[in-house]
């Protein structure tokens, strides 16, 4: 029996082997190697552009000394930029090597190769058009190397301001979430609270939080608490609104089932109403989060002694647009990271929904 099986399968095997050899796709080693080179080549081009093109803009090339592991490294902004490009190229080449023995990863990598190439190319074009040949109006469009220079020159100050922003965001947003969920539960559970509080929430909730800034700045003891207050109210109303909605939409039967099983009122809030409202609570948190970022940056720009918004404002005064861009890059990374963390928490909390709702 086994010999027959082998005989039957032998030609099929040979055929499939021939097919993989012939197919010009990510499964082919040469093809995939070319894909890796393609992905990396953009950054290499960008690095070559940076070193080969003459600097036309009147920008001083200063030397910065970085101390790392008790080594003093002296480098210019162009050195740092090329170093970062090289690092990116190494990282993506490494990812390609890691994907080598896994077809799924190869496929993903091949798909992303074009975008990575374009990223490198865009950096090269930006470099040429910006600081190098000054096609774009200066100083509004500094080259990528100059943005890196902002980090070299201002590293400590930027870090300080980033931490200030983070502190403000963490204090404001966490208070906002707690207050929002708390009032949302009260509104959703007690009809009396709903009657008195909900209309107030509905009317004040549509007002952008920064509109309260004049009051916040004069009535609260210092500017930090004023900004926290603004972030709190912009998260509070949104989250309370959706939490209340989630609690109110809990099917009556769920409460009846819980009651018969021996659930007290408090137990029903904790174990029926809140879990049921959880998807709505997270909708509230994600949308409030976006508004909190806006409020954060605006209040920093309008009356804070620190923060990334403050840093942008201050840099603008000196026409240091490369520093403005540097702060924007940090915001993009930081806010994406926060969104990502919230998304992970949401996915874990709502794992029971997987397969129920269309994602």
């Amino acid at each position: 029996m086994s010999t027959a099986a082998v005989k039957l399968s032998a030609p099929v095997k040979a055929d499939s082997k021939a097919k993989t050899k012939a197919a010009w796709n990510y499964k082919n080693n040469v093809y995939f190697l070319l894909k890796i080179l393609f992905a990396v080549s953009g950054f290499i081009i960008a690095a070559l552009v940076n070193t080969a093109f003459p600097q036309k803009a009147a920008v001083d090339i200063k030397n910065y000394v970085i101390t790392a592991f008790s080594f003093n490294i002296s480098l210019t902004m162009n050195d740092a930029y090329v170093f970062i490009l090289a690092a990116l190229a190494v990282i993506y080449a490494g990812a390609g090597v890691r994907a080598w023995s896994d077809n799924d990863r190869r496929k993903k990598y091949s798909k992303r190769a074009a975008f990575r190439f374009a990223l490198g190319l865009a950096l090269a074009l930006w470099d040429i058009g910006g600081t190098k040949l000054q096609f774009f109006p200066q100083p509004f469009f500094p080259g990528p190397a100059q943005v890196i220079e902002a980090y070299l020159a201002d590293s400590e100050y930027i870090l300080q301001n980033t931490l200030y922003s983070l502190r403000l965001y963490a204090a404001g947003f966490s208070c906002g979430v707690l207050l929002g969920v708390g009032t949302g539960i009260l509104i959703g559970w007690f009809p009396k609270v709903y009657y008195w509080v909900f209309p107030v929430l509905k009317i004040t909730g549509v007002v952008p939080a920064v509109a309260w800034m004049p009051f916040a700045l004069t009535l609260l003891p210092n500017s930090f608490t004023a900004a926290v207050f603004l972030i709190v109210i912009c998260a509070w109303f949104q989250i309370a609104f959706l939490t209340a909605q989630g609690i109110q939409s809990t099917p009556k039967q769920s409460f009846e089932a819980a009651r018969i099983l021996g659930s007290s009122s408090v137990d029903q809030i904790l174990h029926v109403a809140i879990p049921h409202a959880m998807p709505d609570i997270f909708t509230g948190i994600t949308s409030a989060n976006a508004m909190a970022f806006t409020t954060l940056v605006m209040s920093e720009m309008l009356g804070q002694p620190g923060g990334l918004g403050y840093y942008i404002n201050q840099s603008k005064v000196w026409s240091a647009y490369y520093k403005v861009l540097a702060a924007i890059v940090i915001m993009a990374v930081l806010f994406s990271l926060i969104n990502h963390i919230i998304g992970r928490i949401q996915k874990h909390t709502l794992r029971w929904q997987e397969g129920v709702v269309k994602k």
Partner: protein
Amino acid sequence: MSSSINIQNVDRIYTDTDGKAVQALESVDLDIRAGEFISLIGPSGCGKTTLLRLIAGLDKPQAGQLSIDERKINGASPERGYVFQQGSLFPWLDVEHNIAYGLRARGLLRQKKANVSEYIKMVGLDGFEKSYPHQISGGMVQRVAIARALINEPKALLLDEPMGALDSFTRADLQDKLLELWKEKGTTMILVTHDIDEAIYLSDRIVIMTPRPGKISRVIDVALPRPRHRGGVEFLALRREILELFELAQAQPQPEYTI
């Protein structure tokens, strides 16, 4: 571990969405013996679910009194377990935590942790402890609902068409499971159904109700020995008798209603 339930002269009136008063039950009297399996059967609108909800303590009667072991029924309690027709499991809890819900809510989980796996096994769901309700079949969902009610060791189990949404194979399977559990626990069982076969197959007595207003029209003793044969002569004779009560036995020449 079973209770007698006494229903005396109960009236239940509710207002519908148009604000009109509807008499759902009118002077209902019924004595349910301890450990009995009793079915409430009748066309829709006859008040069978209303009566079951009154026994559960989910609603209150406008007149009359309901008592369990001579104590007045006043509000819902774990001593009267309830299985809803569908959709009563908590979708955010897996099978294990749904079943353990009552123990946790009453603060008995630490003490009776072993019961959870015992009841999971009893309804044949071992291996599905970590599944969420939407991941298991309709029949399994109702098994979870039954186990969840029984883990509280109720004196009476109230079943509101628990098999109404199941296909006939799953239904027959669950009926046998229910009888098995009833024999093992001796709990008083009160089943609301619109399925005559199901009522005859399971019950000691069948309460026949008629609508507008909801009333008990007859109580039939099912004196058939167990296990019962769904196609047996006596079974079919009883079936015919009940069908005649509902005037469904003869083919209607000119049906007034179409279903």
